[in-house]
């Protein structure tokens, strides 16, 4: 496959106006599937969470999971949508082996939520830009199974030697959130796309309706993008890029597609309406299914399910009990915690605000909590290429480590080792302290022995200290810390040393 031509982003933007549409699929974290009682846990043995209903066996019928309806309505309300008084499921008919019934039970022209918006703060080189993203609809559907294509070079079905299908995911409830075309983003289109998905993820997380883990596929984004010469022109032909599995990829995929489509158009070519696949590793999109012979899904109302008519009083109750909007909450916390805009921005950019809030709620200090989550833990997460939420470190762990530090049982260096242990799955902080033997050495005996040893090895230090060069004590403290594998309290070692030498430590 030859690589597509791409022109530099700035040149593309100078010549074209990008228009985006974002479709986000959210897997709900309900205990059971959309239409049956199978569990939904991620990572189970293939085809172990299936039944006649989600396998689409002859005779099986769906029954709606009420928890999924509730989650859909809450999402719609949080996105300022209207909630349908009456709506139906529809069948979307097409053949694919990961779809047990060869139709997907979805919603078509009667979505449960519609006409909403989300105000997004977009961090750009020119500062924060406020953008309103209009939401066309949020509808319910069931997820498909997962096909694994073995053999062949592409990992896709064409050219594979054989395929394996895991139906554990089939029937997991999904909410698809579709924006109206996003116009006027201009050179900030990549940042706008990313900021929208990030803000949406934050809201979904605050609603506690989904794990929103992009790398596990519980939040998936399709990027529709087209170019036109000027905003006055009609919309151009769009591509639909799938497999965009991180916030960074959202931004990069938009940027790439702008460059690719611009190159095509400038060379006098045409953009093909097609599905494209984003490749995280190479940073390019490649052509998938062509949609030129537009697929006809033959939608019709699902006759196996009754229409949904949410009681307006119930909808109002759900509205009244929505959690605080994350943006509003941010402003409030900045005031409460006395944070500068810069401090708040770095907290948000680290994607760790909810973790800091949870840490404070669990009894932690906000400044120390911010230090952990935006410092050490974000660094480790970045090193490993995972989301800081997925490190396996909980707010409760951070609070416990802080407590151990304030009790003098840990120092900062040991605390970092405890974090390592927690991340490595060795248990909670206390378990790691116990198993790794990481407690600060508080018994003076071994410390004094180590000091003696260090003094013997560094005979000149005594003279220097006695001669008034108290900073020379650092050599001994360092040696003792090394000998105790960091488990000593440096201040205590220092005090013992001066005590031993009969020298008064200078303030």
């Amino acid at each position, binding site marked *: 496959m030859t690589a597509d031509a791409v022109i530099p982003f700035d040149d593309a933007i100078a010549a074209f106006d990008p228009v985006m549409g974002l479709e986000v699929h959210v897997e709900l974290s309900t205990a059971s599937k959309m239409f049956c009682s199978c569990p939904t846990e991620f990572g189970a043995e293939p085809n172990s969470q299936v039944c*006649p209903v989600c396998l689409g*066996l*002859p*005779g099986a*019928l769906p029954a709606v999971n009420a928890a999924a309806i509730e989650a859909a309505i809450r999402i719609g309300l949080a996105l300022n949508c209207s909630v349908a008084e009456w709506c139906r499921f529809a069948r979307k008919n097409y053949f694919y082996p990961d779809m047990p019934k*060869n139709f997907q039970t979805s919603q078509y022209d009667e979505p449960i939520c519609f006409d909403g918006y989300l105000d997004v703060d977009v961090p750009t080189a020119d500062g924060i830009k406020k953008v309103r993203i209009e939401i066309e609809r949020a509808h319910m559907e069931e997820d498909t199974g997962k096909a694994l294509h073995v053999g062949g070079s592409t990992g896709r079905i064409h050219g594979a030697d054989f395929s394996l299908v895991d139906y554990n995911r089939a029937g997991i409830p999904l909410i698809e959130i579709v924006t109206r075309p996003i116009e006027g983003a201009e050179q900030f289109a990549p940042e706008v796309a990313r900021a929208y998905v990030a803000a949406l993820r934050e809201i979904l997380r605050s609603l506690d309706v989904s794990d929103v883990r992009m790398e596990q596929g519980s939040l998936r984004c399709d990027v529709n993008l087209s170019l036109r010469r000027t905003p006055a022109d009609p919309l151009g032909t769009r591509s639909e890029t799938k497999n965009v599995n991180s916030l960074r990829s959202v931004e990069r995929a938009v940027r790439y597609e702008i460059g690719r489509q611009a190159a095509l158009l400038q060379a006098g070519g045409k953009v093909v309406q097609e599905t494209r696949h984003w490749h995280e590793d190479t940073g390019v999109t490649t052509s998938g299914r062509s949609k030129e012979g537009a697929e006809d899904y033959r939608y019709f109302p699902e*006759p196996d*399910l009754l229409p949904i008519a949410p009681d307006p009083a119930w909808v109002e109750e759900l509205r009244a009990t929505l959690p605080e909007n994350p943006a509003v909450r941010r402003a409030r916390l900045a005031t409460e915690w006395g944070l500068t805009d810069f401090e708040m921005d770095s907290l948000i950019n680290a994607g760790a605000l909810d973790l800091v809030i949870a840490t404070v709620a669990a009894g932690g200090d906000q400044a120390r909590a911010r230090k952990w989550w935006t410092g050490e833990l974000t660094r480790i997460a970045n090193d490993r290429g995972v989301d800081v939420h997925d490190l396996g470190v909980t707010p409760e762990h951070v609070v416990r480590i802080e407590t151990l530090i304030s009790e003098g049982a840990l120092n900062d260096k040991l605390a970092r080792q405890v974090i390592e242990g927690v991340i490595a799955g060795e248990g909670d902080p206390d378990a790691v302290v116990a198993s790794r033997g990481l407690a600060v050495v508080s018994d003076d005996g071994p410390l004094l022995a180590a000091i003696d040893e260090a003094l013997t090895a560094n005979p000149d230090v005594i003279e220097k200290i006695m001669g008034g060069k108290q900073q020379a004590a650092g050599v001994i403290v360092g040696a003792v810390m090394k000998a105790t594998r960091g488990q000593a309290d440096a201040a205590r070692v220092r005090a013992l040393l001066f005590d031993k030498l009969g020298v008064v430590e200078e303030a």
Partner: protein
Amino acid sequence: MQQHLTRLSAADIAAAISDGDVSATEVTRAHLDRIAEVDERVHAFLHIDDEGALATAAAVDAKRKAGEPLGPLAGVPLALKDVMTMRGIPTTCGSRILEGWRPPYDSTVVERLRAADVVILGKTNMDEFAMGSSTEHSAYGPSHNPWDLDRIPGGSGGGSAAAIAAFEAPLAIGTDTGGSIRQPAAVTGTVGVKPTYGGVSRFGLVALASSLDQAGPCARTVEDAALLHAAIAGHDPRDSTSLTDPVPAVVEAARRGDVRGLRVGLVKELSGEGYQAGVTQRFNEAVDILTELGAEVVEVSCPHFDYALAAYYLILPAEASSNLARFDGMRFGLRAGDNGELGVEEVMSLTREAGFGAEVKRRIMIGTYALSSGYYDAYYGQAQKVRTLIQRDFAAAFEQADVLISPTAPTTAFRIGEKVDDPIAMYLNDVATIPVNLAGNCAMSLPIGLAPEDGLPVGLQIMAPARADERLYNAGAALEAALRDRWGHLLIEEAPAL
């Protein structure tokens, strides 16, 4: 004794077992023997589960011996239409595409039959995926009408009706999408009821057209049908379209059988041209009997019934085209062309080509077309509007009458091969039964005599509003009793010995 056992009604069998006059095992053996004796000629069954049936019968006998309470149908044998899943027992829907498939779960109807201690003898023949009016579209060959083995036993549930008419079982389960319980009942001289849509759970009923399908009882008497109806009906949370209402008091109604003061509506559009003379004659006689019994007979008009068949043959294929999409060779049943070379789409395509019969393919193509973008409004959308108009016709008619009546089928049983190559002629068999399915109402067919010209059974259809199934049994029982008085026996007793 053995021969005699197969002639008893379900109610009498249950009473005899309960009283200890006969064991469930004896009853089951008698019916298995009868099947062994006649089914080679009738071909009502696709699968006989002797072992399972005898095990259930033994369990009933043990229960009785232990003094445990027995259900009202304990030990009564039953034939199950092969469209209903039963754990571990082959379920083919009369199609090659499901050959060898053994479902891992019981349908709700089967669960309820088990709970009622009913003995399930096996699975009965049907038109493939319930598409047909003769069983000639079964991939496993047609069933034969016990009144004349050269004739069809109706369809799609011809196997169930034939099993009852041939005394192979006193009870059977049918399913009725456009008449598949009632038309076979009519042409075999038996009783069949399509309950109100949602009255009996569809969970485990392999769907033909989801918005029309309804399982119901087949029997030789109105009372037996009521007993079976009561055993299988009632809300099921696994079927979202299942009614939450209490089950109508059908057994009480079947034992009451009193039509004095009942307003009976003759549907003008379901008579006249296209109806065989002997059918019309017997129907008119039955109307006279109802009048004699004290019913008030009025004529009603349902003008949109003329469009019912056309609307039905858009809605049914549309839903069927989607429901049958899952038969692709990937997870169960037949798989064709899997030679390690061909791709998935080719294997799916070859499987469906090899596994589906001509009528199924015809309807999948019609349905796919009717749902296609650009045609949806003109076909499926328009058919749904007709459906609403038919519901309104019924609502208006039920203002004037408590029940409506018509002949069940325009003709008596036709000869095997007579209409199989003419789909329209075949579809016209259901002209009188289809409106009920489109409206979601309930209806019964019961025998009212033999057509003079061919000596074959004629059925009368009683229709009642949704959720008023007990009216069918009340009116049906009254008419059945009057006819029995007149003949001195049930019509089925006149069927030739096999």
